[in-house]
């Protein structure tokens, strides 16, 4: 669901095809019939943006027919935990949870907590309200539980009640999936889950690019926990990520709100005391996050080296602080409003690659200076003379005062370094040739820019410059004036101890300043002083888990939480699904993979009172990053828009919310401003102007916004023009000629595309209402060998409140025959 694996990850899809040939079943739930659907046993067309209703329906089915995995649910999830009596569900408040603050449009989640204590999330909104005053949950057993799962306020009962109305009939009404098709699917999934079998969910941006994206994934997580499909072979929820190192960039953290290893960046109201900051952010809780202080201090040591001492809290005082959401879309608005003056773009193309391209280009025009580093001259570098606004005559280059630097970048063949792939596997690529001309690696750019700045700042005595001047910036160079040694940088990331010996693993990361570690989850990738990410032992020389190829974080574990592949006593759930198990002889966890659990912790281990971090977890708690060691069916903290997933309509939708009075995700991030207009939704006046659903996607032949494919003749000729996919019914209704032109109209922009009329796009029936969907690949722009309008131009800025990702998988539009007026696109 939410993924077009065959088209976007074809080589990974080989394993799906192989599984199919071994009797596996492939079901594709997607608004469009794609090349993935073509190979699937069944394709189920669904209305874009209605996935929570669909998955919620499955949860309802599993609970109603008792198809869940009882032992797994009872021992490995928080089903038995009792929730604060102040908690009120969306069933009580018609689409809201308790704690909603309408003025600030945000939740206070104190009423979502475990009864008698607060609990910290392993990710997302880390700080638990009032964590300093109230007792923090430490250790395996939360204060109150009901193993019989009967208590009205236990998670299991709350869950049952929350999804009560997600019946097959409701699913049909909301998603457009027929009752019969839905039941057949539910059946299949249940039959393929349990001790003997497992079901896996594969998703991609089809789930994330929504105003409730994080909750889409949460819903699948709940379902998979109920079915016992987590931490086991052939199970899980697999995110297929789109860029070679998008996982690494998240881990090492070119993201505003986290430091390397998902350590939260301090907020303005966080304590200025390192210790207090850590305990407030989970450092006092159970599970491995209990060691937050070790991770943070070692990172600070990596940043400021000898300048990081106990006296200055290891440089904690050097860290900047957040005052809210500072994500990329906020920056864009900052550029438009001229509060952001300078902008670096490293191998990305926001002018066509981000939602509401017009707004991004406006931002670029309002900058003082812009630095673009790329292999090719992309739209983001050429916006000032080659953009829809210039083409339309709306603007002339002379009118634009942005200063632009275009610096040619080195390709992956021209530098050594590591990528972290979608399964957290670090793989090293070796330099093959020297970069041509002025092309340089980002490593070179970062290092030498830093050198210049530090040299220039060193002359002035400004206390504000302490953080940059004291920064540990000593890196051995491959040659004078050349790149810093990437191996050395990776060593710093993976960490070393006082003697400079590389750390064997994350267990060795210390908080007393004795270790240095740039990213604690990568600790161990340089164990023994060798770069384990460069291991390339052929798969035919090792077992199927292939631990000797590259290195996966954490600790080279290939399946996370794999302790759950064994029962509470440590025995495999079944012979067929044997993976990691407790070996009484050696008193160790063994298996083909690295056990994701303290190696020598007995299944019957009970923590001593007062134990913290992982030591507070008993031997039957597989989810070691959670403070209670359990999989969360109910998320008391971490998510800002509710402890349980709830179906809301997209910001722009042709239908009303059939489940609640509350139409849309109350917490979603809105930007109500003239240059970011939203369409009226179903029922509101004017909504009939934009009667169709529009969604975006990728094609095998291109890559994201085209920066790495539109400039290549080999790929360009395979998909040479921007087109839109419409159903024969819509084509007839709107008079769209196959092979002709159509204009997609929204309040943000009108773009033109060739018309591909295809039965692969189905018109969905909702009672007497038919909803048509328009599909748009988003690969084109004004540059490259093949050019076309950019699909991202038609979408508004509206974000998921947890992760600030834009909603481009569902909006509304109108479509008309013919080309757009030449007079400009906005």
């Amino acid at each position, binding site marked *: 669901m939410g993924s077009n694996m065959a088209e976007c990850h074809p080589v990974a899809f080989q394993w799906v095809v192989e599984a199919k040939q071994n009797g596996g079943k492939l079901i594709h739930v997607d608004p469009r019939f794609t090349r993935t659907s073509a190979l699937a046993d069944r394709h189920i067309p669904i209305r874009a943006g209605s996935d929570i209703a669909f998955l919620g329906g499955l949860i309802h089915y599993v609970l109603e027919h008792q198809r869940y995995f009882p032992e797994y649910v009872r021992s490995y999830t928080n089903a038995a935990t009792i929730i604060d009596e102040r908690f009120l569900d969306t069933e009580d408040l018609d689409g809201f949870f308790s704690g909603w603050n309408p003025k600030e449009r945000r939740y206070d989640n104190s009423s979502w907590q475990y009864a008698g204590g607060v609990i910290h999330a392993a990710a997302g909104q880390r700080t638990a309200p009032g964590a300093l005053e109230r007792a923090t949950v430490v250790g395996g057993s939360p204060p109150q539980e009901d193993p019989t799962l009967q208590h009205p306020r236990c998670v299991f009962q709350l869950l049952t009640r929350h999804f009560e109305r997600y019946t097959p009939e409701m699913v049909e009404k909301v998603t457009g999936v027929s009752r019969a098709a839905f039941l057949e699917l539910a059946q299949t999934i249940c039959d393929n889950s349990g001790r003997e079998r497992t079901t896996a969910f594969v998703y991609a941006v089809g789930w994330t690019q929504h105003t409730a994206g994080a909750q889409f994934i949460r819903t699948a997580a709940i379902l998979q926990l109920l079915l016992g499909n987590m931490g086991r072979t052939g199970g899980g929820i697999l995110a297929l990520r789109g860029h070679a190192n998008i996982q690494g960039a998240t881990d090492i953290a070119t993201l505003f709100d986290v430091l390397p290893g998902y350590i939260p960046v301090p907020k303005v109201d966080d304590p200025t005391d390192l210790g207090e900051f850590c305990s407030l952010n989970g450092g006092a809780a159970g599970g491995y996050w209990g060691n937050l202080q070790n991770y943070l201090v070692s990172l600070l040591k990596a940043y400021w080296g000898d300048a990081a001492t106990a006296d200055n809290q290891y440089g904690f005082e050097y860290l900047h602080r957040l005052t809210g959401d500072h994500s990329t879309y906020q920056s864009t608005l900052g550029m438009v409003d001229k509060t952001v003056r300078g902008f670096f773009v490293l191998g990305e193309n926001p002018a066509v690659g981000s939602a509401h391209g017009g707004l991004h280009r406006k931002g670029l025009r309002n900058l003082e200076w812009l630095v673009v580093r790329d292999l090719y001259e992309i739209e983001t570098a050429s916006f000032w003379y080659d953009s829809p606004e210039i083409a339309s005559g709306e603007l002339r280059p002379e009118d634009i005062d942005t200063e632009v630097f275009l610096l040619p970048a080195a390709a992956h063949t021209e530098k050594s370094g590591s990528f972290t792939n979608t399964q957290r596997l670090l793989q090293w690529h070796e330099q093959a040739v020297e970069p041509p001309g002025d092309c340089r690696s980002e490593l070179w750019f970062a290092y030498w820019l830093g050198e210049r700045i530090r040299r220039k700042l060193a002359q002035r005595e400004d206390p504000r410059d302490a953080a940059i001047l004291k920064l540990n910036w000593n890196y051995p160079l491959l040659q004078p004036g050349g790149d810093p040694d990437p191996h050395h940088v990776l060593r710093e990331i993976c960490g070393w101890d006082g003697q400079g010996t590389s750390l064997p693993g994350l267990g060795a990361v210390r908080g007393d300043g004795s270790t240095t570690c740039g990213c604690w989850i990568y600790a161990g990738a340089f164990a023994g002083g060798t770069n384990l990410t460069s291991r390339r032992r052929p798969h035919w020389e090792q077992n199927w888990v292939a631990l000797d190829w590259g290195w996966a974080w954490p600790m080279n574990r290939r399946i996370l939480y794999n302790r759950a592949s064994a029962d509470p006593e440590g025995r495999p759930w079944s012979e067929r699904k044997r993976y990691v198990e407790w070996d009484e002889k050696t008193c160790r966890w063994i298996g083909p993979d690295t056990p994701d659990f303290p190696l020598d912790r007995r299944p019957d281990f009970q923590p001593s009172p007062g134990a913290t971090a992982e030591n507070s977890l008993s031997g039957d708690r597989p989810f070691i990053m959670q403070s209670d060691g359990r999989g969360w069916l109910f998320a008391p903290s971490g998510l800002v828009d509710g402890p349980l997933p709830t179906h809301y309509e997209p910001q722009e939708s042709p239908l009303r919310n059939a489940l609640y009075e509350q139409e849309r995700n109350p917490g979603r991030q809105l930007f109500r401003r003239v240059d970011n207009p939203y369409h009226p939704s179903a029922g509101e006046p004017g909504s009939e102007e934009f009667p169709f659903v529009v969604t975006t996607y990728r094609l095998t032949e291109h890559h994201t916004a085209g920066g790495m494919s539109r400039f290549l003749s080999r790929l360009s000729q395979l998909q040479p023009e921007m087109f839109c996919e419409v159903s024969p019914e819509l084509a007839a209704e709107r008079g769209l000629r*196959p092979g002709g032109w159509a204009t997609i109209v929204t309040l943000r922009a009108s773009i033109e595309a060739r018309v591909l*009329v295809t039965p692969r796009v189905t018109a969905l029936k909702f009672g007497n209402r038919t909803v048509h969907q328009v599909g748009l690949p988003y690969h084109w722009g004004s540059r490259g060998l093949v050019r076309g309008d950019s699909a991202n131009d038609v979408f508004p800025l509206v974000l998921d409140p947890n992760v600030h990702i834009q909603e481009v998988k569902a909006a509304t539009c109108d479509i008309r025959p013919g080309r757009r007026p030449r007079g400009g696109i906005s």
Partner: protein
Amino acid sequence: MVPAANPRSYYGLPIVKRPAWTQEVPWYFFVGGTSGALAATSMVARWSANAGLERRARRLALAGALISPALLISDLGRPSRFLNMLRVFRPTSPMSVGSWTLAGFGSALGAAETAELVGLPAAMVGTAEVAAGVLGPILSTYTAVLLGDTANPIWRGARHLLPFVFSGSSMASAGGALCVAGPVGDLRSARLMVVAGTAVEQLSFFAMERQLGALAEPYAEGRAGTLNTIQRASSLLGAALIATLGRRSRLGAAVGGALTLVGSAALRQCIYRAGFQSAEDPTYLVRSQS
């Protein structure tokens, strides 16, 4: 979407490729064919001691034998590599067989002519002429095998009749050429060649269309259709003129001969053109195979 046409096709796209050849090829079919028939004429004429006819036929044939390779070479994608035609001898390839034939044919005629000019013994001239005379008819008809031995529906479908079309046409055009070139006195045999040749040509062409059935459509459509009308009209008219006026009037014979030549040339053009039309519409191929 694939249209539900019957027989089904892939977006109506051609299955076999249209010929890669250019205009020179049908012209060569005409010139080479005529020259082959003329060589045969000169051989027989020698036996029947008709020196005048022998020499005239031979000279005309020689002219054809010199033009032919020029036409073939200019049709090549890489003319500089024309010698590669004699690189191997592939009995499996009508074109290979043809190339060697043409080479032998040309040299034989050349030899005959030179032998006569430098006054070598008549026997030598005779031998060379026999060689040319025997190769000649093959030169006139092998081109039909060359077309039949393709995947092109309209050529392949008629592979056993095309040789007769070509031989008849060559006979007619040879006669026609002589009618144009020769003095009215001894044109009787040439006229007979035209009439007999045209008869064979038109009858076998008719039979060919019958045998092809629906595949013959291109002969009635587009450029091939037009060329078909032209070739039929001028061949029949030419033959008629030759049979009637040609008896008495030199002019009549010349005009009739010319018309015959036009018809014969148009016939090759027509068949060549039909090959394009037949390849461009996949339904012909699918029909021919289902």
